[in-house]
């Protein structure tokens, strides 16, 4: 797709795309609902309360003060350090994800404000190869924390990721150490890091940056954990409880500070940030 040719890096804006269909059917209650209502309702079914999936862009929109969004992502895209090919070549997979999402990578880094408090924000998009963390995401998150240090403002990360980007092999594994190392700088600078875990925050992302927040909040309905249920059943054939790796499992076992409803996240975020920083 032409927009991803070199020298033409796409930045995200929040202008609404023209939407061809007006109505959608809720997969949970089966009710036909008006799409605009759903959107205005943070992608929650106005009929039954089911959470629909949020793209990174929609997530940002649902969280920040209107008109404060600026995409400050580094202009970088996935390379193919290993020449990886599974059922298709890695870079073809990347190009298809770019085309499908309109995003350069699986994460957007933005400057924005929440409740009047300027923040640097990282938001993953699960549609982009499962929101997996490869070199680009690791670099973007690291850069975002450096930007937060430069601007003396909090860092907020919204995770939605299945884990490491397998196609980058050892390089994706090392992003776990990389993001943790830069996170240490943020702590030394005494700048807050709020980590918000959404559906899903698992494996390499849960076992690194997402679990290192000063405060960790899970969105209701999040999936949080390290080894997926299939891995556990295949390896040790253990029976798993019904709430395995849900927000309530993570909460009961003390991984996270709080669980918040989607519609409350914006307010919750503003409240926490307010303890650390004065609104400008």
């Amino acid at each position, binding site marked *: 797709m032409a927009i991803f040719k070199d020298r033409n890096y796409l930045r995200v804006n929040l202008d609404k795309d023209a939407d061809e269909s007006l109505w959608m059917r809720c997969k949970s209650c089966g009710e036909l609902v008006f799409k605009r209502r759903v959107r205005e309702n943070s992608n929650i079914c106005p009929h039954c309360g089911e959470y629909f999936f949020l793209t990174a862009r929609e997530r940002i929109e649902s969280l920040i003060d209107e008109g404060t969004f600026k995409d400050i992502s580094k202009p970088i895209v996935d390379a193919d350090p*290993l020449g990886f090919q599974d059922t298709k070549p890695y870079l073809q997979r990347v190009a298809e994800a770019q085309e499908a999402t309109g995003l350069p990578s699986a994460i957007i880094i933005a400057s924005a404000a929440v409740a009047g408090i300027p923040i640097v924000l990282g938001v993953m998009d699960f549609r982009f190869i499962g929101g997996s963390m490869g*070199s680009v995401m690791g670099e973007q998150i690291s850069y975002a924390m450096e930007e937060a240090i430069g601007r003396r403002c909090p860092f907020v990360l919204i995770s939605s990721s299945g884990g490491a980007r397998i196609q980058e092999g050892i390089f994706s594994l090392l992003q776990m150490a990389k993001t943790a*190392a*830069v996170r240490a700088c943020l702590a030394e600078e005494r700048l807050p890091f709020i980590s918000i875990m959404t559906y899903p925050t698992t494996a390499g992302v*849960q076992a690194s940056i997402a679990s290192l927040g000063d405060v960790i909040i899970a969105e209701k309905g999040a999936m949080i954990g*390290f080894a997926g249920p299939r891995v556990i059943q295949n390896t040790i054939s253990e029976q798993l409880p019904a709430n395995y790796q849900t927000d309530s499992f993570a909460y009961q*076992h003390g*991984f996270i500070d709080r669980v918040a409803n989607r519609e409350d996240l914006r307010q919750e975020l503003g409240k926490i940030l307010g303890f650390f920083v004065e609104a400008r």
Partner: protein
Amino acid sequence: MSDEKTLDLLEAKIQELRELNKKDGIDLSNEILRLETKLESLRAEFYANLSDWERVKIARHPKRPYALDYLEAMFTDFYELHGDRLVGDDRALLVGLARLDGQPVAVLAQQKGRSTEENKERLFGMARPQGYRKARRAMALAERFSFPVVSLIDTPGAYPGLEAEAGNIGGAIAENLLAMARLRVPIVAAVIGEGGSGGALAIGVADRVVMLENSIYSVISPEGAAAILWKEKEKTQEAARSLNLTAPRLLELGVIDEVLPEPPGGAHRDFQRMAGLLKQSLVRHLAEIGTLPIADLLAARYRRYRSAGRYRTLSDR
């Protein structure tokens, strides 16, 4: 091209002939010598052309020397410390104090079991949260008393089980990554067998990382990658190749510092020599980084991890 089984078979045959030679007094020495020469050349040829999957098998070989073997051979006075002070003592990840060439060091070591019985205890070298938290306790101790840290990595991965999940194994790994990034003592890590993903990295953030020639280090097992990406178990060998998980390849990619050559056939074929080489390497690396001012060491470690990764930079509009 022979496989390992054929080589073992040939070796057994030679042994039979030797016994025949001794017992019955039939002179077979020429035949034996001829076969031995043949075996050596076949073995050399086989091990010079190992596929990545064959290396994975050597890395997981049941006879492969484990951490405790190296601990015994390389260190004096290994004094094991137990327990994470929270829930228990993990037997898959051992920590303690020891002397390396007379110098006290803190040791982190992943230990697989030799027998079924031992593996019940050691969970095949897969540590649970209590293991990673015990390791973190040992790191803190090392920092407080300025002991360099030596980490021996050999794990299929962190333990995948309900108890480990309930103990927030992901969080435990993350905390170790953070701690090691800033630990104010030199850290040298050696992958002696399997470097299985986050479970390995959680004791593997270091100033120097060395690997034994037939050890592996990967974001996921070849079996896992085959299941997730190809959705076919049969693609395991292809996955092993695609992941670039061998020591020589990781050295080429610039993510490790040294590959220690193994005796033909693997470390278990001449363990004393292997242990000697590893010890020399650890001593040398610790000597090199041990003299750096700690701020320089931390800055270099930071640069090492901050720069990890490969991507393409586009010109911004």
